[in-house]
């Protein structure tokens, strides 16, 4: 493989200082190292940020919001009992992803930064505007591989593979960023960019910026009693979503006071349509117009490839997630989190 420099800064300031174009941040490495081995990413410098203690820890801030350090692992966060209690659908999404070993290594910031799983992005002999701007998009007309039905363009038709980001978008999570020009915050909903004409720009991060933490606002806890993540796929575990949905309801006096709905695996970012959420407000949870809300969320969806069936599946996934949320968050995390088979007995937990 291509030789690279390996640096281990001792502080965020030092990390920002050593960064230069061609350098990458190394967190858990579960995506980056694969891409480096495959020649998809060829950094000249790998900056290992794992020694930055400032990026660790889960803390409740004075305003009641929860701050999650960038280097907190997926497993550490999902297994934090307070976290799972307050933000059950986020924990469920985390536990539905990858495998136990990967969740131990992968970090929450890395989850936001993971690249698309499109086969044409990962194959260095294929044309891919995201990997090499201007080369084209072989995914169009190719074997269907993680393709979008919303928000795509001629330049790129892929999706964002994250489970974690889907409920984060629903709960108005905030990304804390530091860069050469100081600290700033980006709403998670604005963090991932639709491809447009510049699919190589995947996130709102500017060159040299680093994610230092994620924050979940205090009012997001208000959904804890009715919040589910649902992930549909051809394999019961260890597969990226074919479609997914995070649904959360705040129920007051028997009616939905507030609703959140975010869809995964259908666009280059978690797909949240607030107008769809508004359709649910004021209804009893068992009589809410889930169909209309789901249809509204998928408004404008069209095939980008041989994937028209995904539109119907995404709609049904959204409806089911809303139904599950209405039924109430289960007391215990299902053995198969986020699975349509979650309630079967005898499964080993979190496979």
């Amino acid at each position, binding site marked *: *493989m*291509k030789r690279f420099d390996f640096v281990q800064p001792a502080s965020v300031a030092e990390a920002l200082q050593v960064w230069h174009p061609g350098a990458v941040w190394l967190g858990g490495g579960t995506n980056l190292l694969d891409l480096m081995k495959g020649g998809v990413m060829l950094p000249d410098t790998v900056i290992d940020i794992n020694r930055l203690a400032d990026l660790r820890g889960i803390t409740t801030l004075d305003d009641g919001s929860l701050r999650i350090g960038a280097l907190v692992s997926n497993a550490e966060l999902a297994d934090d009992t307070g976290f799972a209690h307050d933000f059950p659908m986020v924990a469920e999404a985390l536990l539905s992803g990858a495998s136990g070993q990967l969740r131990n290594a992968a970090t929450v910031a890395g989850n936001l930064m993971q690249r698309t799983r499109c086969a044409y992005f990962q194959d260095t002999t*294929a044309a891919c505007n995201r990997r090499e701007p201007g080369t084209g998009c072989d995914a169009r007309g190719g*074997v269907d591989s993680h393709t979008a039905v919303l928000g795509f363009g001629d330049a790129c038709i892929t999706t964002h593979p994250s489970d974690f980001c889907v409920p984060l978008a629903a709960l108005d999570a905030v990304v804390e960023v530091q860069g050469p020009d100081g600290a700033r915050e980006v709403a998670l909903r604005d963090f991932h960019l639709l491809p447009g004409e510049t699919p190589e720009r995947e996130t709102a991060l500017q060159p040299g910026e680093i994610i230092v933490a994620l924050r979940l606002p205090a009012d997001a806890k208000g959904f804890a009693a009715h919040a589910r993540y649902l992930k549909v796929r051809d*394999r019961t575990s260890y597969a990226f979503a074919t479609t997914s949905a995070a649904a959360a309801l705040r129920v007051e006096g028997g009616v939905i006071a507030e609703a959140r709905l975010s869809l995964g695996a259908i666009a280059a970012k978690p797909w949240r349509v607030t107008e769809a959420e508004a359709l649910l407000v004021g209804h009893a949870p068992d009589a809410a117009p889930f169909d209309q809300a789901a249809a509204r969320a998928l408004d404008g969806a069209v095939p980008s490839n041989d994937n028209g069936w995904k539109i119907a*599946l995404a709609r*049904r996934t959204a409806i089911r997630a809303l139904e599950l949320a209405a039924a109430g968050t289960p007391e215990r995390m299902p053995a198969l989190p986020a699975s349509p*088979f979650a309630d079967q007995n005898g*499964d080993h937990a979190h496979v």
Partner: protein
Amino acid sequence: MSDTMTPQRYGSNAGQPLTRRDGLAKVTGTATFAADNTPEGLLYAVYVPAAIARGRVVHLNVEAATAVAGVTHVMTPQNRPPLQGDPEAKPNGFSFIVDVLQNDGVRYAGQPIALVVGETLEAATEGARLLAPRYEVADSETTLAGQGGEAVEPGAFGRPGGAEHGDVPAGHAAAVSAIDVVYETPAQYHNAMETHAVVAAWDGDRLHLDLPSQALSLSCASYAYFFGIPADNVTIRCPYIGGGFGSKAFPTGPQVLAILAARTAGRPVKLMLTRAQMFGPVGHRGATRQRLRLGIDGGAALTVLDHEGTAATSRFDDFIEPAANASQGLYAAEALRSAHRAVRLDVGTPGPMRAPGEASGSAALECAMDEMALLAGLDPLKFRLRNYAEVEPGTGKPYSSKALRACYAEGAKRFGWADRPMEPGRMRDARGLLTGWGMGTALFGCPMFEAEATATLRADGSALVETSAIDMGQGAWTALAQIAADSLGLPMDRVEFRAGHSSLPNAGIAGGSGHTATAGGALHAAGRDAIRKLGEIAAADPDSPLHGSGNADFTARDGRLYVAGDDSRSEDFAAILSRAGAVDLTGAGSASRPAADAEAHAMNSHGAVFAEVKVDPDLCQVRVTRLVGAFAAGRIINPRLTESQLMGGMIWGISFALHEEAKHDPRSGRIMNADLAGYHVPVNADVRGLEVLTIHEDDPYVNALGIKGVGEIGVTGTVGAIANAIWHATGKRARRFPIRIEDLLD
């Protein structure tokens, strides 16, 4: 050979559920697989796979690759040293044409187009990347896409014949009810846990290989062919194989190139394929399209079973998946036809993959039988019993043994099949998931090959047994050691078992589910020979209690030799050998099936598989929730390993039914899911409720030990059972594998 052989009654070791002798080494990481060897002076080789399916390479940036620090050599068609054996020919009838840089042409994606050798794996990998090939691209075809293909001229390995029995047109005409359906199966790739590897070291014109091979002796001869040396000059060390499944029985292009690089460099060379490189030059199961035409009379008896398989092969060599042959020998149709056609595509040559032909053929046949049963208005099991073959259909030969009825009965009982409603879509579980039950018949031949072994009784009464048998992870060495110990009348811990090296007596091929029967047969014969010789010594020794027993038979038990039928006359092995001068006593044995026995009977393993699936009614995600397989496979040497093999086969069936498919880009012809993230196989959460029953079966004809083999049969029957269960759950008949969410969505 007599008409019936009396099976040996074993009681001490065979039949015991011993754990794998190599289990501890494997789980603790001390087992040395081929690529774990790092001899002094080792170089690392990495090959560059073609990124197009057809055309030629017009440029390689050799300069850039050579400039990488640590790269020692770049081999291309321009500088590739000559091979003594023509790669466009084959070393023997049981091998494939290999791609070893014989020219600049590309005939499938993944074909080696250059080899980079370096002091480190990293250097060689970077050199390979920098070669940045440019191509002249020709149009390619990589999918069956409705092509009719050519009729297969049967004969050589890879060119299956068909069969026709009875009057097929009359069978069609006589049918009062008939189906005409087409089933499709995709290209599938073996993906053993251990990818293909070799560590090659030359010593003059002698070649030493650390290499996983399912056929050690044949592999020695094949590699010798390419390098113009006698087969005896090649040794292969193969103590462990991390899965073979048919893909490690033949020399492959990448391995030949690495050996050539070692000869060129005068240093040992290691090559291990990446996961992605497994998709191309090392074989796969070719895609098939199968047309099945079945007809029944008013009594639901099959008037005709007409199975035509069209399979993909490469442009330059033949392995036509013999799918239609799955319809031979199973159901008692009045008229029976199987035929094969081949479509040449720009893909690597397919090859045998676990239950080659039987797996894909059974998948289609068992679904078609369900479709026919529905038209007949019969329960699928009753329909199969209505067409149960008492003798082999077409030939009329008796079966050497066939406990299939018991498999059906025991499997159905265990599963609870009697409660199955006929109509689809009638069962829901408490959560509202659609629930379906399906079944399929399992069938696999029980071939024997040829093998040799020796058994040496040592002066201390212990023994050494030797044969070049190989263990792919299935536990062969454990089962074979059990057979060997019993043949010598010794406990396991008194027998040293040596195998997995080409210098040992030839144990033949580990394939066709015949290794235990074949190598075991040779070990059994060798042990018996040693005991016979020991008996001769004792009978001739005036100081032995066995003296003068003349031509009486001897039996060996727990390290003592007895006059058969007279337990009062016995003596310890060591005592006999001690008086005879404390010499080692070696017996030799071989095994193969006498032609007359093979001719007189139809020989098969049988089974019945019952599946339960749950399907989400809206989201259409599928999960297999129960799988019960009942199998009759002759004598079971080790129940634990047998259960594991049969379970493995059934899990493979889940994989075939729901997961595996190589997807070629329609333009480049490259396989776009050439990794385990994209090419799915089941994970633990996909495998639950798995149960194996083995049905007692004595077979006096198959071989002296009555062994039939269990390595592949578990795949057959299972695929159809799952597909039929999906139909039963949903009412939707998917005729293309794997069955996916989008196939079931309204």
